[in-house]
């Protein structure tokens, strides 16, 4: 039987063991740590503190912010925006040293989330941008 140890974990996820434990919403005390306004990353103003911008040590905030901006562009296709989100997370994760499994898990989690809960957000964003 294969023994699970730190070295194996490092090999599986591609980075340091402690990096693998990094989950961070990028907010602290109700404010974003990067200095931007709430919602400028993964999640909305209400959910920013709960939706991670960093998952398994991988910063996905820019992929999320681009996705938000795609939704807010009048006439932009929701399917294209969601596909771009997944592709951007995969590439961005790869450039940050994430391995195949980690990157696909992260991209999968966010893809499922936006496909399940993105409809109302897309509708609202389009209504706000098409005037």
């Amino acid at each position: 039987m294969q023994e699970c140890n730190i070295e194996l974990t490092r090999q599986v996820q591609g980075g340091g063991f402690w990096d693998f434990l990094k989950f961070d919403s990028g907010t602290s005390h109700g404010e974003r740590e990067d200095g931007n306004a709430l919602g400028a990353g993964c999640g909305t103003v209400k959910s920013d503190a709960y939706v991670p911008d960093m998952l398994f040590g991988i910063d996905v905030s820019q992929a999320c912010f681009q996705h938000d901006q795609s939704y807010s562009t009048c006439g932009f296709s929701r399917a294209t925006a969601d596909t771009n989100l997944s592709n951007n997370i995969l590439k961005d994760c790869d450039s940050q040293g994430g391995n195949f499994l980690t990157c696909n898990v992260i991209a999968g989690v966010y893809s499922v989330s936006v496909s399940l809960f993105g409809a109302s957000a897309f509708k609202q964003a389009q209504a706000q941008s098409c005037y």
Partner: protein
Amino acid sequence: MQEEQQVSRLHKFRRLFESLFCGVGLLFFSGCCTEYFVDKGHVDWVGGISFEIKPPYLNEKKAFNLRGQNLSPEALQQISEAMPFIAAFTNAQLGNGISYAFLPASDFKVRSIRNIQNLNTDIFLAVKSIQNWQITAQHIQFNTDYFYTGPDGHFVYYRDNYIFSRSDRKWVFEKHAKSEPEGLLACEKGTSGWRVCMPLKPTKEFDSHPLSVLPL
């Protein structure tokens, strides 16, 4: 002893993983509440000054980086007044589905990132942050960091500089703060795990017309 440490760490990892799943579960459960996922905007308070982070140009307004910039209440008040104008200008600069014919005539002197970087209309240009504020009574100077998906699928980051001036009750683009944009940025993961971006080329110390007056 070492095995005990490994087991302890693995237990910690398992607890963290369980917390994550609980969090995701809660997130899905609260999915009933659509407001949780729909952003209608809010009023942000920075240094006692209110900022209307509301449509139109909601995301451009979210990109205003105002915290940790050592801005006085007077400077913040000025940025608050200029926010709608800077957000609209930034949206036009992104040029996602907007024709340059819709830009005001005075804005034709603005550098186009799409032209400089040869970005066709299919490429989605996004704003990362608007920061490095320098304020005088009549002017606001700042940098805007943009990003887009490059040909290899990776994000490309780009910075340019702007000066807005007061005109009646409006704030309008006056000129670029420097004769050249800072250009491409190199963004690396810092020790905290977040990206830190720096210009690839060295910036010129004395250039064009940066605001040399002390901030308010």
